[in-house]
């Protein structure tokens, strides 16, 4: 079964909205961070689907494709793949920083619930 690009865009946008909903409604810090990761995943699906052309070949120069000609031009766009790789690395970095901060907050307040983090050191 072939999936249309437009279906993938809508699918990724729905996942993105699920992530936004999770980030807004959850009070638990880890759940919020997981929601952010869901949003990033949705983005990655969206970017990968941008480069996909129905029926195209992978953008790898094989032995039979010494030159680019109309016969072998039907390859998927490799640029979004490179963008996704960068986005994944950045996403991992952000999540790691977020988890580090959440652990620090847990040690300080003994809870992960953002509403129960009292103002004991606020002025």
């Amino acid at each position, binding site marked *: 079964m072939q999936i249309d690009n437009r279906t993938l865009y809508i699918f990724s946008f729905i996942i*993105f909205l699920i992530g936004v909903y999770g*980030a807004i409604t959850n009070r638990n810090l880890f759940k919020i961070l997981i929601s*952010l990761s869901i949003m*990033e995943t949705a983005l990655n699906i969206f970017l990968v689907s941008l480069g996909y052309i129905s029926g195209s070949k992978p953008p790898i120069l094989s032995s039979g494709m010494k030159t680019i000609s109309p016969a072998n031009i039907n390859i998927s766009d490799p640029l*979004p793949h490179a963008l996704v790789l*960068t986005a994944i690395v950045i996403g991992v970095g952000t999540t790691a920083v977020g988890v580090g901060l959440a652990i620090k907050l847990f040690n300080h307040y003994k809870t992960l619930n953002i509403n129960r*983090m009292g103002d004991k050191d606020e002025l």
Partner: protein
Amino acid sequence: MNYNPSVLLIAIPVLSSFLSLIFGIYNKLLSKIILVITVLFNLIFGVFLYNLISKNGNILAVIGNYFPPFGINLSITYFSISLLLLLYLIFFVSSLIFVVKKDERADKISSLLLLYLASFSGILTTGDLFNMFVFIEIFSIANITLISLKGNGLSTKGSLKYLIITSIGASLFLFGTGFLYGILGTLNLAEISLNFDKISYFSKIFIFLFFLGSIMAELEVFPFNFWISDSYSGSKNFVNILLSGLSSMVALYIFVRLFITIFGLPAFTTISYSLPFNVKFLLPTIFGLSVIVNELAALSSKNVKRILGFSSASSLSLILLSISTGQKDGIISATLIGISVILSKPLLFLSSHQIMKGIKEKNIDSFVNGFQRNPFFSILFIIGVFTLIGFPLTPSFYGKFLLFILATEKASYITLITIVVIFSITIELFYYFRLIHKLFVPSETKFNFEKTKKNFVYILSGLLLTLIIIFFSIKPYFTQNIVEKITDDVFDKSGYIKSCLKSGEK
């Protein structure tokens, strides 16, 4: 003109960031020296580039010999280099304050500050949309870590809130970038600008919403400003200076560059007639509301850093309101207010920190008898307040006056919003004069404060900022010249495209 060495504005701080960590293993002082030398290099090289741009026009740096629209390129215009120079100055002041403090993590913080320097230099100079996204992410991570440096619950909470809101923003930015790439097949800003009118109006609405939503948090606009209260009050003084004078201005640059130079503001103001809202009215409403909410939040706060934080957000919203009028006078007004904010906010944070030094509670009562305790920084604080609120002769005065004239020239919806907003600025007068009044009130209860030590770096930084403010105030023609050049550059869409896409020229 092509000038590839301009890449050094980003490359040297990134290299120094690694060197700072390596040399920090042997001696923490070396990391601090690397930080100061790198900032000075960027400042001096920035002045050189400013002269070059003033003489020869926009600079294009071609990387890997891939001429635009292919590959990544840097495009430096008069607007970006002028803003960069001001921001380097603020960064220099902030670095000096950090350098004189004893910290066991000096090597790591130096490395982080250098990464921060590289990222905002990148945002202001890049000519590629995805490259801008990468720099925004580095900038956000550096900001998050800097906010959490103090290590207490408040600063960690503030930084996590900032992380959550900027992560959502970054996702929206990347969605917008992907969307544009899917339609136009390019990530080059000049190429996008050239072909932007070919996009259907339905897609333009999506792009508008994605990019606007992505920078709302950094722009401290209501309702995305909830991170301010914890982040400002919980972070260190040199981080406050960076947050108020630098981070917000970088977000403002992204807004102006994307919405005016690249997309063209008329592209959005004319598409919305078939929508339930008109962008022409939507933006001033959001920003006007944001001014009022931030002013009220500042008024209700007792913590001095929080007051200054919300006041900073309010000033930024006022600048955005001026920009959203979409007219040349609006941009001139925004630039004048912007110069005042960039220079006065660090001065206010720096002087208030010295006034409250030694007092445990950093609330408005810690200002009591401040003038007697520390007359020098009290005077600097008063100068900072006058610059911000728009005392006659200061750039902010001309900016607010111009905005008022612009709004009242022709009766419209923007007139109503601007007048309401200008009256709400009187709230600012109230809480700042309350603080100034406290400086001269003799204390009834005795505070346990240490006698303020003379700190050479604080005095030097305060004096430097004050002298620059005075220079901008007493040299109106010089200021006018700069502001007009910036405004012309912001609206010069075709000039930007030409300077980037004239491939092959050496």
